């Protein structure tokens, strides 16, 4: 994959004709690229970089509009509270890791299988692709709305399964601590697998077809072709999209916020969900900021690995 990008980033060819510039208006072509990236840079500075910095600032403050008497400089207090007093922190962190690793590995597995299937020629392929990819467009709250209906204890799928003798009446998959994890995983897989499959399918189609023809001539079996041609070709893309996906699953709170609300009994609270609860409902902005800083340190590790693996250093001059 890196090579594919490298080919594209060969840099602009030396322009033979002089690029038209508008010197008279004071917009020398040398300034044009800066003008072009200016809106993006300004937006990102104002609404990503500055907020990130202010999160660091707030993390050293007691800042809670509902407790104005306590507000002020806190130093490390928020952080010591997180690591020593907070009874939720380690549990939510552990759940985050469990959630992300199970979710992403299953998405990868099913996504790869689905991509391999719909990459083949068969009657009705376009329709099949459109249908299996369709949950991609549905996300977050709508996914949970759909699965709340499916998991409902009175009129959900379990009722009809009980009718044919599987399970029992009145089972609520979302309020039972034993089933809620897998119930949430299945709901998230429903919309996550298509996304992964689309990414992998895009890469599958960039494998030169003659490689397979040559392997066919040499008498290589389908399995050998998969192991020696398909997998090596997909390797980079799989690693990078898995990393991105892991970060995405870690950050995304829409689904769990609305599907389980983090419950039952805090059983399905990820770290970002905990932060969202602390800030949206608890209004404890200082403490939430300290938690966010901790989350950033974890994400920093991911992004370092990602930047290293994507060979960012070697790609551009």
């Amino acid at each position: 994959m890196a090579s594919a990008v490298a080919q594209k980033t060969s840099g602009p060819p030396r322009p033979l004709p002089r690029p038209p510039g508008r010197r008279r208006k004071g917009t020398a072509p040398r300034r044009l690229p800066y003008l072009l990236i200016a809106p993006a840079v300004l937006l990102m500075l104002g609404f990503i970089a500055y907020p990130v910095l202010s999160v660091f600032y707030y993390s050293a403050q007691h800042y809670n509009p509902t407790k104005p008497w306590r507000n002020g400089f806190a130093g490390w207090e928020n952080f010591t509270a997180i690591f020593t007093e907070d009874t939720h922190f380690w549990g939510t962190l552990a759940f985050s890791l469990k959630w992300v690793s199970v979710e992403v590995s299953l998405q990868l597995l099913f996504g790869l299988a689905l991509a391999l299937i719909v990459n083949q020629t068969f009657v009705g392929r376009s329709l099949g692709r459109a249908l299996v990819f369709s949950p991609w467009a549905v996300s977050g709250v709508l996914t949970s709305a759909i699965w709340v209906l499916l998991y409902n204890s009175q009129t959900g799928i379990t009722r009809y399964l009980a009718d044919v003798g599987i399970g029992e009446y009145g089972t609520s998959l979302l309020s039972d601590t034993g089933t809620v994890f897998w119930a949430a995983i299945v709901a998230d897989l429903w919309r996550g697998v298509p996304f992964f499959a689309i990414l992998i399918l895009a890469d599958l189609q960039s494998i030169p077809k003659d490689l397979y023809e040559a392997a066919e001539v040499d008498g290589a079996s389908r399995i050998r072709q998969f192991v020696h041609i398909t997998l090596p070709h997909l390797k980079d893309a799989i690693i990078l999209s898995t990393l991105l996906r892991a970060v995405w699953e870690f950050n995304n709170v829409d689904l769990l916020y609305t599907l389980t609300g983090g419950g039952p009994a805090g059983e399905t609270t990820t770290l970002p969900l905990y932060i969202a609860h602390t800030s949206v409902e608890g209004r404890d902005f200082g403490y939430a900021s300290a938690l966010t800083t901790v989350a950033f340190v974890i994400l920093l590790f991911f992004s370092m690995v990602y930047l290293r693996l994507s060979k960012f250093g070697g790609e551009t001059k």
Partner: protein
Amino acid sequence: MITQDTTRSPDLSATAAGPDRAGSGPAGRPPVSRRRKKNRAWDEVPRWHIYLPLGIYLIFTLVPFYWILLFALRPTGSTSLVPWPLTFDHFEKVWTDRSFATYFENSLITGVATLIMTTLVALAGGYALARFDFKVKRWFMLALLCSQFVPGALLLVPLFQIFADLSLINSLMSVIIAETVFQLPLSIILISGFIRNVPYSLEEAAWVDGCSRFTAFRVVVLPMLRPGLVAVGSFAFVHSWNHFLFALMFLNSQDKQTIPVGLNTLMGADSVDLGALAAGGVIAAVPVVIVFAFIQKWLVTGFSAGAVKG
């Protein structure tokens, strides 16, 4: 034997990202390929190792869709597995009593505005990345990559502060800005990938003919970018349509709320009105399903051409 089909999928193949195909518009399958594909498809005998797993996966995909339609169309209290007797009461109720008409309008405004802003800003940034070498290019790209790791959900507190300072709380503008900003990094990377696929020599030729850089871009490059712009724009729209937390946080009066927040309030209590929830869900799904049906054949092309992974 199964043959890997890469060249015979004119609608989705990675090579179709090339300018010649990319410029051919929605109905842009070359007739030759269509004929070849058709013949080929009907030569194939159904194979269980494709159809069986695909069928199982299809059931998993479609049952939830069916379920929500079922609940939206059958009367409250019915346990029938077909939506009969058919009723539209739930829709009426959600649309008027639960003010989904307002939510829908707000979501539509937010989505379209996000789409326009994201596409314009990303188009400029992507063109700069694809066509120029400049001093801070490396830093800009690093910033784009890194910002993919910055979660919007974790920036709620400072973003709330900023929008409060700008007096944009309870204005759709706050959500539009936030959605745009978090869509930008990916959109710029995608669009610059698409622009790189348009031969630079075509632009040069236009300059020779006396076009300004802007005219050359508008006349030569822009038409070829159509699939890319459709992909980027629809991502922006769908994301903004679906996203929940920004609207929940920044909009606090009911007449400013968006569809996901409305859906969430329907789910809130234990005594959920399932019919209303289902009808609200169907209303929420309609625009994204339309967008998806429109763009799905460009989706894969979009990803491979845009080098989304790197």
